């Protein structure tokens, strides 16, 4: 038999306690094409992929591979069948080398049984990585790599497993533009070889650039599948969120108030001589390539990283910030770009994560008022539309985008006057994005001062009153909202 399709999922359903994550979903994947799956946070995209990958078992439905019914009970079986996945949250072995990660579970053996032929493994790994255009020493430990490099390793792994279907769950959410371009050229190459890519992303522009076919999911249901050129962005968005969104940014002219934060000659390990003022009511954008030092600057203002030299003034008073605790005391909040490391306690409930920095608010004398805490948390869950079966659900079980919303909810609850958003909409769906933008503009209107870091230039341009551009740890340019354009920002950022 010779089907035009490689992989077919029929009537897949999956429930978790309190949620029906997938409801009779169908999906057909053809070789040599990029099939994008799009949908709101919690729509069930990752769950469907985990089922195709043998990580989760479906409650009902079946999977066919090249016309043959398969039962995928484990990741090994999925890989043997021909499916690989680059996860939304990467799961490499940090202490092992690149080569060992690529060949994990598939090591070239030597003549002595049980021994790994290291030389061959390293040689093959280097060959693969070279083919992907990444010239790295394959004996380096995985933990030393950037996220983009780790992704390359995962792709190399998929290729070494001779996979014909490669799933990429939000692969670009932590990549710089240059790295995205490299990834896309690799995807093109894989397509040429007849490999099918299942691609998940919330970024509209790249979806239209890379996809051949698109499937929209909502609330665990399959909504539609069509060729990418049969749909436009506006229609797609309305299919995703189930309503029309007119303007994503709705920036109002506002007159900034007095200076609330100023830093002078701020110098750290990865940046030097940073000077800027931030006024009440202002949204200050910080642009720059990944690794330019943007995150380090805000992290050091928040007390997460050491300051070597320089001063921070709040309301004109010099302050010493040695820890996030000091920062919070000085009314600074930070939504970190790394939600797994700095944002969430994954093993705690949604409620406890949201209230973590603001327990002072739900206290009666010495003791916590759990009822009040519950109410406060539920109010945040409603306000940010966090999709969870209950406020007692563990953060770990929420979809990526909803986890990000928890982090934002936690920081907002603190009522800080200065709020720093580092890649705030990473992994967040288009509907929620516009909600968060609205929220940010509103915070500014209320007289709070915001700093926004983002790799998505439309986001920076749409939100900021003023933009600082960082390159190699220094401020290279400052642009007003009126003069800023994507080209101008990129010019200063790359030079």
């Amino acid at each position, binding site marked *: 038999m010779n089907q035009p399709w490689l992989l077919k999922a029929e009537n897949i359903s999956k*429930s978790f306690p309190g949620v029906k994550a997938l409801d009779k979903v169908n999906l057909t994947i053809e070789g040599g094409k990029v099939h994008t799956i799009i949908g709101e946070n919690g729509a069930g995209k990752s769950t469907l992929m985990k089922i195709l990958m043998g990580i989760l078992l479906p409650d009902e439905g079946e999977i066919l591979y090249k016309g043959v019914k398969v039962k995928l009970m484990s990741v090994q079986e999925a890989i043997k069948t021909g499916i690989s996945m680059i996860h939304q949250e990467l799961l490499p072995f940090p202490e092992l080398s690149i080569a060992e990660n690529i060949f994990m579970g598939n090591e070239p053996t030597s003549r002595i049984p049980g021994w790994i032929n290291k030389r061959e493994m390293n040689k093959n790994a280097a060959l693969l990585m070279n083919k992907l255009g990444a010239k790295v020493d394959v004996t380096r430990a995985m933990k030393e790599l950037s996220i983009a490099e780790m992704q390359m390793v995962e792709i190399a792994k998929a290729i070494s497993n001779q996979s014909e279907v490669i799933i990429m769950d939000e692969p670009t959410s932590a990549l710089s533009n240059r790295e995205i371009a490299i990834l896309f050229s690799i995807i093109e190459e894989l397509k040429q070889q007849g490999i099918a890519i299942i691609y998940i992303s919330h970024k509209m522009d790249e979806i239209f650039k890379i996809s051949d076919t698109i499937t929209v999911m909502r609330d665990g249901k399959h909504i539609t599948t069509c060729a990418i050129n049969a749909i436009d962005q506006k229609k797609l968005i309305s299919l995703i969120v189930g309503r029309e969104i007119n303007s994503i940014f709705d920036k109002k002219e506002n007159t900034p108030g007095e200076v609330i934060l100023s830093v002078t000659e701020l110098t750290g390990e990865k940046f030097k001589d940073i000077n800027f003022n931030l006024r009440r009511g202002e949204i200050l954008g910080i642009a720059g390539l990944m690794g330019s030092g943007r995150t380090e600057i805000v992290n050091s203002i928040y007390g997460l990283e050491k300051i070597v030299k320089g001063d921070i003034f709040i309301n004109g008073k010099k302050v010493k910030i040695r820890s996030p605790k000091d920062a919070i005391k000085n009314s600074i909040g930070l939504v970190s770009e790394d939600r797994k490391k*700095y944002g969430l306690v994954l093993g705690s409930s949604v409620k406890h994560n949201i209230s973590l920095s603001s327990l002072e608010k739900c206290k009666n004398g010495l003791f916590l008022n759990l009822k009040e805490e519950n109410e406060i948390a539920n109010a945040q869950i409603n306000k940010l539309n966090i999709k969870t079966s209950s406020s007692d659900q563990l953060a770990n079980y929420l979809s990526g985008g909803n986890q990000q919303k928890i982090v934002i909810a936690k920081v907002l609850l603190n009522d800080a006057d200065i709020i720093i958003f580092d890649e705030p909409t990473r992994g967040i769906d288009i509907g929620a994005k516009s909600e968060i933008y609205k929220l940010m503009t509103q915070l500014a209107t209320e007289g709070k001062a915001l700093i926004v870091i983002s790799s998505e230039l439309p986001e920076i341009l749409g939100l900021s009153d003023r933009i600082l551009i960082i390159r190699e740890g220094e401020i290279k340019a400052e642009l007003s909202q009126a003069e800023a354009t994507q080209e101008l920002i990129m010019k200063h950022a790359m030079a």
Partner: protein
Amino acid sequence: MNFKNLLPPKLPADHSPAIAIQFKKYGIFIAFLLICILLTIATPNFLTLQNIVMVLRQISINGILAIGVTFVIISGGIDLSLGSVVALSGVAAASFAHPGTYGLFVPLLVGLLIGVTIGTVNGLIITKGKVAAFIVTLGMMTIARGLALVVSDGRPVSNLSDSFNFIGGGEFLNIPIPILLFGAVILIASVILKYTKTGRYVYAVGGNENAAKASGINVNSIKLFTYIICSGLAGLAGIVLASRITTGQPNAGVAYELDAIAAVVIGGTSLSGGSGKIIGTVVGALIIGVINNGLDLLNITSYSQQIIKGLIIVGAVLLDRKN
């Protein structure tokens, strides 16, 4: 294309897995009840008031230690020095408890202070010195044992005042004092963990230290707090033990930390930190206590007892994690 179902449908409520969750939540209680039922059938003496009180008194020392180490384990640490702290605080308290010397208050204070001091030292070396808790408390295990032997010259400290002996041997309202102390510790510990900011922070630190720090929590002081609570309770346990056996024994408490840690783990607290409950630890201590007692009642030799005890502990946890 299908544009019909544009409106998001309501999610259907799904209640089927609720039973599974209930079992997961109460698995260890069920295991405990099973063991009790089996013992009730196997021996007529098990389910008597007298025997139950005896079991409770027997587990109170391990229970107090286990509650202390629950704090440490939830925060992501470990404490191996407990058994030695029991010996040191017992010997030291006993040295001040001879009849007609310092009364009751001083020996109690000495015992508790020793616990608190050792906890502080452990905590400071772990947080400020950034040495692994396993190593620090392993070292402290030997140091405290050595100190107990030095302080007592290697001999038991006996001839203690009646008031001191009352702590381990006395009763109030027909309830042995150790059980009352254990009960008070359970209550206070549960309230701290559930109803105070500090308690909440203990979970956060164990769950994700970086995120806890970024949320404005002083991670070091929380860790220090857990080690102080843990050793402080070990100091209390040392006093209770010395009083019960009416002697400060420098060789007492060997391997007590292992029973305490076993109770915590049986009770569902993960050794990797971030989760756990006092009530679980209490049930864990109860299971160990009931097994010891039952095997005694069944006249099983102490050698075989160890094998059976080990099997039941692993079996109970297996039953709990099965879901």
